[in-house]
């Protein structure tokens, strides 16, 4: 790379284990991600994917080592500041059941902004929060007539796209997706990935995509593998 870009994610000798455990669940010596980079994290179940997710999102802090997001040492923040940091800078998409069933599609998307003034300000930069949500949903192939419908009536594929819209509204720097395609069939999966990449690129969002499915790896810039023995092992590309 020509010019030094600020790293979005920076892990240095990160270890994590629960207080009463003898071995580390997470052990990553070095990992740096720049703006707009797409990382594929592969790992079987039990390999610490969820723990890594919780670490990146600032729910847990590393037992040792440094974890910086956008240059901020997450462990140094008070828990409530970590929550706020997550609200402001990170979007998260789960495997499934991403949405609050009692809210409409639009409300689910705009809810992100309720917890972050920064996201709210950015989303309403041109037009209001609702317009931003509508634009995102439209871009993700969710037409206006669906926006006010209860989310329980949506297909899984549609729900996952709403989740992407919710994660991306307000332009967070980092998008973490945890097996977002595991409940989709292959057609839907491909279309979902395309839209995900398209919108992430449109916002220059760094993407961390966690999955057990190695077939998806080819579509990403980089990949790391979390070993079954809970030993993080960097696999360059």
């Amino acid at each position, binding site marked *: 790379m020509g010019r030094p870009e600020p790293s979005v994610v920076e892990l240095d000798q990160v270890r994590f284990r629960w207080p009463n455990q003898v071995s580390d669940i997470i052990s990553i010596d070095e990992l740096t991600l720049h703006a707009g980079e797409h990382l594929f994290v592969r790992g079987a179940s039990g390999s610490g994917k*969820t723990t890594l*997710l*919780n670490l990146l*999102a600032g*729910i*847990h802090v590393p037992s040792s080592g440094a974890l910086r997001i956008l240059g901020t040492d997450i462990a140094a923040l008070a*828990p*409530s500041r970590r*929550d*706020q940091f*997550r*609200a*402001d800078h990170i979007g*998260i998409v*789960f*495997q*499934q*059941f*991403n*949405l*609050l*069933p*009692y*809210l409409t599609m639009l*409300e689910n998307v*705009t*809810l*992100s902004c*309720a*917890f*972050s003034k920064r996201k709210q300000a950015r989303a309403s930069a041109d037009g209001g929060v609702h317009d931003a949500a509508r634009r995102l949903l439209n871009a993700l192939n969710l037409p206006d007539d669906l926006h006010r419908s209860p989310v329980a009536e949506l297909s899984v594929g549609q729900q996952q796209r709403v989740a992407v819209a*919710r994660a991306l509204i307000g332009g967070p720097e980092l998008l973490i997706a*945890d*097996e977002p395609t595991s409940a989709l069939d292959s057609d839907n999966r491909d279309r979902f990935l395309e839209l995900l990449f398209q919108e992430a690129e449109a916002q220059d969002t760094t993407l961390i995509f966690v999955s057990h499915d190695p077939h998806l790896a080819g579509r990403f810039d980089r990949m790391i593998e979390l070993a079954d023995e809970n030993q993080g092992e960097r696999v360059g590309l």
Partner: protein
Amino acid sequence: MNLLRLALKSARFRRTSLLLTVVSIAISVTLLLGVDVVRKEAKSSFLNTISQTDLIVGARSGPSNLLLYSVFHTGSATNNVTWESYQAIADLDDVAWTVPISLGDSHRGFRVMGTTTDYFDFYQYGNKNTLEFDDGEAFDDVYDTVLGADVARDLDYEIGDEIIISHGLVSADFAEHDDKPFTVVGILNKTGTPVDRAVHVSLAGIEAVHVDWQGGSRTGLTLDAEQALKFDLTPSSITAFMVGLDNRALTFRVQREVNDYAAEPLSAILPGATLAEFWRSISTVEQVLFVLSVFVLIAGLLGMLTTILSTLNERRREIAVLRAIGARPTTVVMLIVLETLLVVVSGCLLGLGMLYGLLALSRPTVARRFGVDIAPSWPDTTQGLIMVTVIVGATVISLIPGFIAYRRSIQDGLATRV
């Protein structure tokens, strides 16, 4: 979207179980407030059994006993008051009016009370209520009788019916004053006092049925109703009498005068004070009622706790999603406390509505059957306090699921498996 709206929408989504909880809280609140209303009404109705009467005088005995037999027609007098003593006290300067009471006979389980027509003018209960006639008028003839509302209703009597008085308190064939029937000339309105259960006759009537009796049995001589009238029907003694004074401030002086009455041992009691004292001695009943309804409330709150705890599992996803978009653990706790508040406040309001609905619906029936008119009124301090206690208690209880959700949201974090 603010937290309250989020809590409302989330609660609406789980409305079935929450509505049931609201109803169960409402029922406990209705019961708790209802017991309070009944307690207060019972107390005020009891304390107002007799009003505007300054003193009740009878043979010397304890105040409760005198009150019980003279006003409640329960138990019996230890002794009588001679007619002469009665006259002497009635003639005291400070005495405005007196109403004699002569007890001892009964009619099919109801006490017969001999008195004068002054009774219908001076006896007052509640907030200065005097006795009113539902039908007919006061007795005039020796063999006239005026029935309390319950007597007429239970025995299905009308004006013009003839009734037989039994000697003593137990109806028995051999002790009927069947030769001297009384004619019903008046029926009183319901009062909610022992008056409802009394058969009123004149003092002369009491004397007339007893002219051919000595002690507890008939003399050999039999006199019919007409013949009895030829005797002097002024009683030689009465059971007790009510006294009204010209000036309330003189009550204690007259009381002392009666208590010091030299010719025979007499007691004068202040009915209001004695009623209050008596109520205190039987108020354990109201306390038991209150404690019972508190337990019902606790059961209602525990039901609410169970419901909220059981929803925590189904809300795990919801909490993880909220955490993912930046909600703090305390925000999650707030949502649960808000939901509890929502449930318990709705429960209180519904309970209050149910109580007032019930009171309004039952008002005519209660007034007719118990003689107590429960007018609708705003919740008083006690009721307000009860509801505040319920709401505060529920909020404190909601901290249990709140705390569990807090710990879970920290442990689970963004765990996606449920």
